[in-house]
């Protein structure tokens, strides 16, 4: 494939799957600037690896691998993260969300809870919410399916506790 055709194919695929990238950025970054930085970094890494994409795995699997590898490995950005314990330090978008429905409220509670998970747990939660099978999760993360099930049960329990605490005002950010 020639360079312009390659670029065109890449941009087309990016436009189809950009939702995934935004979700990864929203999960791993706390400020808008960091989110844009991470988005840029993921796109650069995807573009660099694109010529070697042979289609052996599904495109989305390949994309998740690169996006999560980039997000998890960039520890500097994570160190800049603000712990969401002070309401004044909540991400602006969460503060600005209008409570116009139960859906937004639930999503906000979910994001608040996910922000308190570790980097690995965040990746697992995201793949679970994206309705990926354990087989696909294994292909992306490289963790055995049995281990994934154990971890996922633990995360669900953790999130249940966190959201309950939030609902009762305990540990509410």
């Amino acid at each position, binding site marked *: 494939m020639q360079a312009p055709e390659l670029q065109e194919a890449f941009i087309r695929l990016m436009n189809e799957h950009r939702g995934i990238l935004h979700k990864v950025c929203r999960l791993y970054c706390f400020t808008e600037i960091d989110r844009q930085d991470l988005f840029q970094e993921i796109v650069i890494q995807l573009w660099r690896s694109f010529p*070697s994409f042979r289609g052996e795995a599904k495109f989305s699997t390949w994309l998740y691998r690169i996006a999560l590898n980039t997000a998890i490995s960039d520890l500097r950005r994570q160190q800049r993260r603000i712990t969401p314990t002070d309401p004044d330090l909540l991400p602006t978008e969460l503060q600005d969300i209008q409570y116009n429905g139960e859906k937004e409220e639930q999503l906000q509670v979910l994001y608040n809870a996910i922000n308190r998970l570790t980097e*690995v747990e965040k990746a697992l939660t995201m793949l679970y919410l994206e309705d990926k099978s354990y087989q696909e999760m294994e292909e992306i993360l490289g963790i055995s399916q049995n281990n994934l099930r154990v971890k996922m049960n633990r995360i669900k329990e953790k999130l249940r506790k966190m959201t309950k605490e939030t609902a009762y005002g305990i540990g509410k950010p």
Partner: protein
Amino acid sequence: MELENLKHIWATQTTPGTPEPGSEELLALLQKKSRGPVARMRRNLACEGRIILFTYIPTIVFCQIEFQGHLSILSALLFGIGLFFGIYYYRKMQLLNEMQCVSCMVRSNLARQVTTLRKYIRFYLVSGTAIIPLTAFLSYVILHWKFPVRPATGTRVYHLLEPSPWWASPIFWLLLMVPLTIGSYYLNAWYINKLYGRHIKKLQELLREMDEE
């Protein structure tokens, strides 16, 4: 709150506040340089390499052609150290190129990063420390070669006890080399830990978390 029930909300969420880059903006992003940790390390190493190249080459040439060639031995010493830097630069770049595989599974990429970063740190420490005894040894050899100490001649006792210059004594060089090498080892270890200590610790923690059941 059950995670299962949130899948629909998750799938239909919008991204408030995040401007959607168009195709043109995406194309512009492709021309930008990576700001990831490995790319930054590679750029720093390239910068280090350029500094060595731009300072060593003119100095070597200067020592070779000026002062009627009297300092040519100094240029040989610098060339030797420069060669050491060449090997150092090549090996570090090789390790940095091996350091990540973004399209691999997340766990194997983390394991690769930990292993390669460990090798990188070990090499950094060993080469950073070895440069001191290497320079001292080369200086000692050059001084002995350029200013050979004549063996004591004559049969009288004071001729035999005639002291050789202080710099010709291997004990002096050893006394100089040992504390400097030890000091350099600790200084390098501190600096490397400052640079990569937290990074490798965090990577190890992530890997441990992925492996634990």
